[in-house]
């Protein structure tokens, strides 16, 4: 065996020993890499590898941040696209590698999200480069796992936050409302995401349904502000201007606007409806006829609220108000054709209040609802006894009025005599003076009073405008309207679709204070 051979064997043995060290290192590296909890541990592994291949300099950059002692010249270098050895002298590596005999090569290996560098040796052998390459792959996998674990934690925190926020939002605009006394209420509130811009609140006799423009969190914040303003405004007689006062500034600042319908529901069926920029409210009578209550003011936040016309309606048993948000009629099918208002109206007319929501939801199946969807049905309790009577111009049928009243009122009911008298007077009036030939009377009992709606096809005539004359006067005309005035707690008149419509709340007459004439 020659000296050369000896040297060769020695070198070979050294290499084998190195390789064996490398193997031991790699064996240890795998579980350590898998358990990595931060970049400092990754840096420690890089340093260990550097010690193993006997080079003093090592640094790791992850996500643009250097870990370990990083000399200035290294910071000036760019991440390589592929593993590379920068030969000694090719980079200015600064002290202590400035003297010609100490010049160092730099081994640079890219990572997915950074790179690592080793230096301090004149050259890096293939076996050493392989070891560092393997280390880089392991670090990539470990750092990726670390990143994912961190993202998962963050995501979980965000998800928990959203969940809590959703619960708060749901408490503000509940998925279920309490049915107001005398009404049945059905609600479907389906936000487009965790939060919606559609809302519904309830306070005392008030119920408000609305839609803040946009959706998601920004709309939900405005909704929450609305809810608190509403609670206070509902105690005021002027709900809408109070709401507008509280919110106009915020809406304008955030570039949002809000549509709403405010309903004040009295147990006897009398309802005040105010529509501010919202889609038409559908008033569905028990016989399926529809009336639209359209917006009488632009949405809040567009123009200062000036005047809202309120509509007074009487819901007789079985009558209902149907409310819906634009999520319904703006839903589009596969060809981009919207569900539409016409179809909404048809659906409302064809399906009863009990099935409207169910049928709307199933009709939406082939449509994509991208917005919040809110459907609400308020039906006057159909179990309350009520009667509907159709009359012609034939006065011989007048006794039918009393007979109809007696189907819903007991003989001793305090309003019976007054109601029969007042309604007879109005019917005679419409037939005699308005030439009415088709009259419809709807009546239901409301406590000590009777709520009646009389529609007739006679000439337009508002009997409330006629001076009724005074009681006790010996004359032959004008007693009829005097009687109605004295029996009516409330008396409304409207001309709708070529029909006169009078709505009255009738009760036992209040005693007159003035003394009778002789």
């Amino acid at each position, binding site marked *: 065996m020659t000296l050369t051979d000896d040297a060769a064997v020695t070198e070979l043995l050294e290499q084998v020993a190195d390789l064996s060290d490398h193997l031991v290192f790699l064996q240890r590296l795998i579980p350590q890499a898998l358990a990595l909890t931060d970049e400092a541990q990754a840096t420690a592994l890089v340093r260990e590898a550097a010690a193993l291949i006997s080079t003093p300099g090592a640094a790791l950059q992850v996500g643009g941040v250097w870990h370990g002692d990083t000399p200035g010249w290294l910071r000036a270098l760019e991440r390589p696209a592929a593993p590379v050895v920068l030969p000694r002298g090719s980079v200015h590596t600064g002290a202590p590698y400035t003297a010609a005999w100490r010049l160092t090569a730099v081994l640079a290996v890219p990572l997915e999200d950074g790179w690592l560098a080793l230096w301090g040796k004149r050259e890096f052998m293939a076996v050493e480069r392989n070891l560092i390459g393997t280390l880089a792959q392991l670090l990539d996998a470990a750092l990726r796992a670390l990143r994912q674990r961190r993202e998962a934690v963050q995501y979980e925190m965000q998800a928990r936050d959203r969940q809590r926020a959703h619960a708060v939002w749901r408490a503000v605009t509940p998925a279920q409302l309490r049915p107001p006394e005398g009404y049945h209420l059905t609600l479907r509130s389906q936000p487009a995401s965790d939060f919606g811009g559609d809302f519904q609140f309830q306070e005392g006799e008030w119920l408000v349904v609305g839609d803040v423009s946009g959706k998601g969190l920004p709309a939900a914040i405005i909704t929450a502000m609305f809810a608190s303003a509403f609670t206070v405004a509902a105690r005021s007689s002027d709900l809408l201007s109070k709401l507008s006062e509280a919110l106009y500034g915020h809406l304008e600042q955030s570039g949002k606007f809000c549509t709403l319908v405010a309903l004040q529901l009295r147990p006897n069926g009398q309802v005040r409806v105010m529509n501010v920029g919202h889609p038409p409210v559908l008033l569905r009578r028990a016989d399926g006829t529809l009336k639209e209550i359209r917006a009488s003011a632009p949405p809040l936040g567009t123009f200062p609220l000036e005047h809202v016309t309120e509509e007074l309606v009487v819901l007789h048993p079985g009558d209902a108000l149907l409310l819906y948000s634009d999520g319904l009629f703006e839903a589009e099918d596969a060809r981009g054709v919207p569900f539409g208002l016409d179809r909404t109206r048809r659906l409302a007319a064809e399906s009863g209040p009990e099935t409207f929501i169910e049928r709307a939801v199933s009709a939406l199946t082939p449509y994509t609802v991208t917005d919040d969807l809110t459907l609400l049905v308020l039906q006057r309790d159909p179990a309350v006894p009520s009667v509907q009577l159709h009359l012609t111009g034939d006065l011989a049928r*007048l*006794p039918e009025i009393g007979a109809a009243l007696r189907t819903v009122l007991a003989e001793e009911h305090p309003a019976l005599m*007054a109601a029969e*008298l007042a309604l007879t007077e109005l019917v005679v009036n419409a037939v005699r003076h308005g030439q009415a030939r088709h009259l419809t009377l709807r009546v239901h009992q409301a406590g000590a009073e009777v709520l009646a709606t009389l529609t007739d096809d006679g000439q337009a005539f508002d009997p409330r405008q006629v001076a009724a004359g005074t*009681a006790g006067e*010996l004359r032959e005309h004008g007693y009829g309207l005097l009687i109605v005035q004295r029996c009516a707690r409330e008396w409304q008149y409207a001309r709708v679709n070529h029909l006169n419509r009078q709505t009255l709340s009738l009760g036992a007459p209040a005693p007159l204070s003035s003394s009778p*004439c002789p």
Partner: protein
Amino acid sequence: MPLTYTRTGPGLTLSGRLDAQNARDLREVLTEHAAQPGDLTVNLADVPFIDSSALAALVSALKDLRRSGRTLRITQASAPVRELLSLTMLGRVFGLEDLR
């Protein structure tokens, strides 16, 4: 509904509904009855319903009678008649006191 009445001397007893449909008949009966001398008495105890048209006929008859120094008195009145006379405050005019 046709008008149902019975006459006994100066007294006229009406029964059944009195409303816009038979008010004209009521006027005729009252006019006819007023042709005899003296005051007129009308018994409305058996009238289940009366409206302002029938009341107008009674008022018209009263005015006619007053022109010849006579009067029309309602001797008895059912609850609905009292209600109407109370609402219009014409009870005393027809000689009925203490409505309610």
